């Protein structure tokens, strides 16, 4: 049906490094050879820095604007630099299905350009996953403010944002770590995160996580994700691994897990991985997560990891109440078609055509289609129906009572009995969803 899916057996990846930090991470990624098969593109406003980059595709952003001298920490410059080169950027991002955007927020180029690139890449039809760092506290208020603004924009532009707060690194490293090492660690983490995602998709797996999984997991969520990866070995590696994960500052000491509404867990180990270990990891980890969280678990086998266990967790927390600037976009070519499709459902049953394919849930389109041409009769019918709904709405002021109203009358004066985040004062049969019929 969809020629694109049939043709692209192997997923095309593009790792795009934006700004100084992104470019350094790219260098590390390329040098380590951790991601064979991926394409790399480095984008920077600073031409001199870019010349040190190993990436095959290098692009000086906004050359006429900044003359290749960088944007000096000005976010506005970074943004306009990316916008002037929009056509080139679109070309860079086209033809790939997953764009991993790597940037350090807080500076000019990364903060300003990354959201623009994310938006362009998504318009070009790619799934955009941004992996960004936020600055250390000592870098000052301005950079932090910039980073926050950038993050907000990025969240609405990219499909998913994984944030690695550098400040959390401080608690991992001791006081004697040199400044170079600390920044090195920050870049290393970005690198691990990017390669972790690559590993998730490309390594042969027992329970493989394919691109569709990731896409379903991320697409249109505008979510903020926390990422953590750890490697353990030894007898009780499953338990100690989970323990380390939960204590990881990148998961906010477990808070990110308990707040997450979807969790992607990937286990990588050698041939010696047992099913009970998988079971234990999943079970232990789920104790720290909310009941309603969606789970995706992938397992990959890697000979080089014999005796070790690598756990990677992406915990996604939907920011439902935050205004998002852009709605999820679809490829340009699709959006017109989609638009007309979305304007018709209200005509269901009175002659409107339905293009909607129920087997394939589609995210909403941002495109607002013009009003459809209607015959006078249809118009009458539609207007009549609108009138009816309005009248009904007015009558609905009185709220309906739920099927079961659980009063606390008997236990009104007492402390709630809570076990495993369940309020035991509520009837067990309700909590277990037992039907009485």
């Amino acid at each position, binding site marked *: 049906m969809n020629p694109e899916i049939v043709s692209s057996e192997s997923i095309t990846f593009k790792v795009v490094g934006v700004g100084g930090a992104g470019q350094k991470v790219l260098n590390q990624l390329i040098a380590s050879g951790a991601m064979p098969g991926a394409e790399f593109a480095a984008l920077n406003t600073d031409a001199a820095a870019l010349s040190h980059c190993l990436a095959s595709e290098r692009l000086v952003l906004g050359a006429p604007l900044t003359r290749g001298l960088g944007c000096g920490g000005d976010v506005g410059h970074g943004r306009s630099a990316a916008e002037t080169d929009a056509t080139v950027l679109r070309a860079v991002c086209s033809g790939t299905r997953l764009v991993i955007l790597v940037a350090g927020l807080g500076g000019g180029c990364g903060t300003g350009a990354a959201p623009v690139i994310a938006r362009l890449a998504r318009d070009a039809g790619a799934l955009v996953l941004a992996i960004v760092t936020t600055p250390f506290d000592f870098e000052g208020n301005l950079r932090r403010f910039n980073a926050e603004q950038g993050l907000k924009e990025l969240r609405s532009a990219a499909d998913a944002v994984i944030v690695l707060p550098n400040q959390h690194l401080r608690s991992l490293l001791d006081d004697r770590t040199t400044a170079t090492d600390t920044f090195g660690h920050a870049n290393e983490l970005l690198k691990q995160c990017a390669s972790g995602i690559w590993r998730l998709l490309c390594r042969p797996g027992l329970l493989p996580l394919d691109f569709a999984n990731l896409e379903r997991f991320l697409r249109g969520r505008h979510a903020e994700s926390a990422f953590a990866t750890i490697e353990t070995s030894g007898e009780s590696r499953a338990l100690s691994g989970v323990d380390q994960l939960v204590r990881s500052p990148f998961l906010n000491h477990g808070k990110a897990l308990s707040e997450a509404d979807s969790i992607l867990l990937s286990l990588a180990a050698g041939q010696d991985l047992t099913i009970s270990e998988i079971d234990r990891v999943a079970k232990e980890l789920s104790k720290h997560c909310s009941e309603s969280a969606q789970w995706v678990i992938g397992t990959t086998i890697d000979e080089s990891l014999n005796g070790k266990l690598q756990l990677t967790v992406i915990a996604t927390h939907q920011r439902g109440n935050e205004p998002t600037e852009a709605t999820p976009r679809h490829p340009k070519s699709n959006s017109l078609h989609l638009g007309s499709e979305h304007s018709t459902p209200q005509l269901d049953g009175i002659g409107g055509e339905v293009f909607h394919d129920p087997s394939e849930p589609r995210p909403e389109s941002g495109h607002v289609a013009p009003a459809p041409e209607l015959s006078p009769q249809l118009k009458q019918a539609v207007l009549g129906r609108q009138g009816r709904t309005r009248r009904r709405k007015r009558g609905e002021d009185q709220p309906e009572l739920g099927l*079961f109203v*659980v009063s606390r*009358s*008997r*236990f009104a*004066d*007492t*402390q709630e*009995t809570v*076990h495993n985040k369940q309020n*035991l*004062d509520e*009837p*067990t*049969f*309700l909590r*277990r969803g*037992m039907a*009485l019929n």
Partner: protein
Amino acid sequence: MFDPTSVVVGLEVGTSKICAVVADVTREGGFTVLGLGQAESRGVRKGEIVNPAELPELIRQALDQAEQMADVEIRSVWLGVTGAHMAAIHNRGKHLIASDDRSITEDDVQDAIRVAKTLNLQPHTYPLHLIRQQFLVDDQPGIDNPVGLVGNSVEADVLVVHGNFNRLQTSTKAVKSVPIDVEDVAFTGLASQLAVLSPEQKEIGSLVIDLGGGITEFTVTSGGIVRHAGVLAVGGDHVSQDIAIGLKVSLPLAEKLKIEHGSALVDDSIRGTLITLPSDNGLPGKTINLEHLRRIQNCRLEETLEIIAERLEEAQMFDFVHGGCVLCGGGAHTHQITRLAERILQMPVQIGRIQCVTGIPESLDQPEFAAAIGLAKYGSFRVQKDLSKTGRWNLKRALGELFGRTPS
């Protein structure tokens, strides 16, 4: 007739009933129940007093009844306390031996226990019971009594049963306003265990679960020592409430249905059985499905026992339990509860009968009196300990003897 000073009284102010037990203690360690009084309880939820206004009157009623039956006058009681705030933790306290010959004295042992007592306790938490588990001399474990041994350090492993100080005070205050003296308070879970376990069961390791009206307590006893204790603030009230919500009946009716038709298990044979409730007080009659009633009840009881099993598993207590489980409290009357518990706990389960007590009529040998009888027993142990320590009744008791009225 009786030496009044050898009378101990256990008082349990429970969620569903208030129960007082009068017992006579002999110097040889005999324990005879003389009387028992009970009254319906009000203003207690989940084992804790939430509304003390009506309580003194009801407590008085229970004590009166016990006094009449035992033909003694009650001056003081051993009061049972429980509640969600209570818990038990395992602490280890270390004390370095300072003396030249490095021999361990009783004082050293007490010091080690004192260290263990307050370790890891939150502020406002009061250590109610200290139960010695074992001692370690120079890191060598498994010593029962280190006094007289030689070593550099002595460590004490202690099970500390603790509760919130203010909430413990609430109980004491309510009883004192009756007015009646409170000798001391004890955790009801420990008391139940004292009443229903035989010395053999205590030795080989037994689990006691007290299924109370508002709260469920559990203790593990092994080698004659209480190894673990815990509470879960879920009880018979929750079962009744679930039934009331699920079947849409009033709470008192739910309670009645639970007692008359309830069961811990759902048999296939009852499928489709209907119970017709007669109309009364102008309310129309109602037909309810017996299967629903039992499934609701089964759900709750299963969950409660599962949580207890989980907690014991976490504390690695199943290794200690070889003698099976004993159920007591009003919940032990539930039809087929032993079969449900056997399935979940994977051990033999029996309904508790009062052990090592004389003078108790058959009609009073009921699992729901275990806590109150156990409290009296706890009191008797303490009285005997005082006796053996001082060789005579203590001053307070002696004064009581002088100024108090002698019973008729």
